[in-house]
């Protein structure tokens, strides 16, 4: 087990709305080891992105607020840092790549300038040196003709290229943790594969941990070492990637895996999980998944704890009671 780089403990992030308090992240705990790739999986609206923004301390306040918990990164609790100290962490030690590559770039500056700015924010370099480094970063993310592309504006580039630019910006200061929030969701399928491949390659030899947020289990299977499954603001299962796909412990994880199309299987319709993620304003009593669960029984009216199973696996389901390792 690698040493912990990031340790999130009982994180609670809420949004105060006129309709009430939405508990978007409700007691999430997990760790990311040095150089490890962790997939954070779940349907839309289950709190993955809010967890990511909480790590960066970028939750819009108001209406959002990190209520309690701790986020320890390299021995420091990020929640206790001043805004000024936090700015030195962002983009330097922890970087994030967002889902939407067009709107994540400033339309009035060239892509190269924006990478240069990311470098200049954290490193004392002359104009020429930082420019050269920005061109190197463009080359690193395999943008053809990087010298010329330095002066291209975002609207002159394709979606895939723009996402490469975002990755170049995120990696420009050699962060120890990269948070990739649905990095390939907004792209064409063929380009998705290229971006994931790029991330896989860039991770190697950089000693960089990746927190990969996605609802796409195929991407997780390809990239992640370990998987954290979230549902309705809490962690329901945590497992090394092979074990998760071989024998999912939580009925929700089973449902997610079953709803993937499989090779050699011809079905009229893919199986799916009935119902939707509960509204964070009205989280159900007991097990949050119970009203969609095929296997519910009497005990499910009480919220289960995370049971520690064998080989670093954990699951929040009463079915796992008694099989702790």
């Amino acid at each position, binding site marked *: 087990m690698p040493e912990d780089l990031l340790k999130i403990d009982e994180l609670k992030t809420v949004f105060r709305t006129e309709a009430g308090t939405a508990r978007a992240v409700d007691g999430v705990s997990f760790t990311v080891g040095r150089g490890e790739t962790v997939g954070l999986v779940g349907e839309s609206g289950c709190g993955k992105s809010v967890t990511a923004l909480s790590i960066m301390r970028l939750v819009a306040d108001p209406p959002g607020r990190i209520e309690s918990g701790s986020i320890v990164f390299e021995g420091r609790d990020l929640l206790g840092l001043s805004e000024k100290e936090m700015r030195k962490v962002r983009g330097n030690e922890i970087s994030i790549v967002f889902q939407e590559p067009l709107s*994540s770039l400033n339309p009035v*500056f060239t892509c190269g300038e924006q990478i240069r700015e990311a470098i200049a924010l954290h490193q004392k370099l002359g104009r020429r040196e930082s420019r050269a480094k920005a061109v190197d970063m463009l080359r690193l993310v395999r943008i053809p003709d990087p010298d010329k592309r330095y002066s291209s504006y975002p609207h002159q580039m394709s979606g895939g290229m723009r996402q490469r630019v975002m990755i170049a910006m995120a990696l420009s200061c050699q962060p120890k943790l990269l948070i990739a929030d649905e990095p390939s969701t907004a792209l064409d399928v063929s380009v998705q594969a290229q971006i994931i491949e790029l991330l896989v390659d860039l991770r190697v030899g950089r000693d960089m941990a990746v927190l990969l947020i996605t609802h796409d289990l195929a991407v997780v299977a390809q990239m992640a070492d370990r998987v954290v499954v979230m549902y309705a603001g809490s962690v329901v299962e945590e497992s090394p990637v092979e074990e998760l796909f071989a024998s999912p412990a939580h009925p929700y994880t089973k449902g997610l895996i079953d709803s993937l199309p499989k090779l050699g299987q011809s079905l009229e319709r893919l199986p799916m999980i009935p119902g939707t993620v509960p509204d964070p304003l009205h989280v159900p009593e007991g097990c949050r998944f119970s009203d969609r669960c095929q296997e519910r029984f009497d005990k499910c009216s009480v919220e289960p704890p995370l049971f520690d199973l064998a080989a670093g696996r954990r699951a929040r389901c009463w079915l796992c009671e008694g099989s702790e390792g």
Partner: protein
Amino acid sequence: MSGGRSLWSAGWARFRRNPLAMAGAITVLVLYLVAILAPALTPYDPVSHGDLPQMRHQPPSKDHPLGTDKFGRDVLTRMVYGSRISLTVSFLAVALSVILGSIIGAVAGYTGGFVDAVLMRMVDALMSIPRLFLLLTCIALFSRSLLLVTLLLGATGWMSTARLVRAQILTLKNREFISAAEALGAGSRRIVLRHLIPNALTVIIVSATLRIGLIILVEAALSFLGLGVPPPTPSWGMMVYEGREVLLDAWWVSTFPGLAIVVTVVGYNLLGDGLRDSFDPVRFT
């Protein structure tokens, strides 16, 4: 979006195809050239009196194409020098109000909450004060000087820019590239100055250009009321004022500076409209 090199060059291409906008741009350019080259354009002195009384109120002639005023001074010469006052005062006053308004509007829009509420109520309060009376009071309290007039015009004109910029910032600040810049570790000042204001720049420039015309009119009105630049420095508003007693006998004294004001204001408005039509992103997305 077309593959033009940038927002600016695409806008410039549109601008060049718009004849009215080009007419406005050329008018403004010529006016600035006239103001800069004034001493080279006319042989007369704008201030010193001619041979009284035979030189006073001479009609337009070969020597004095636009006639002379009651002190026998060449009207064309005074108009040429007067352009310096109108253009300088209006440019500096608008620059001041645009800088103030942009910063206050951007801070209000980006910070939001309490700061925003306080700043915007301040704008509401200042906007409810009749501007001309404020100017008259201040000029009456202090002395008449070019600097004071410029500062007052600038300091009383920033509110509409602040509102405009704030509205722009509100639409921009929730865009992802602002979160992305924050995620890279950029501070608030950097976000406002480098990411928000440049994206609102076209709107700011357009409104500034349109405001210059307005400021020229206010300056002329102040001079007409005898509260602008102190005489004998020529300014268009004062020249119109000086000619009003003899409008029927020596029409040229008031008419030509009046025309100069009209041409300048129209020129700036055409330029401003043209810039808006060519650069305002709302019209092309």
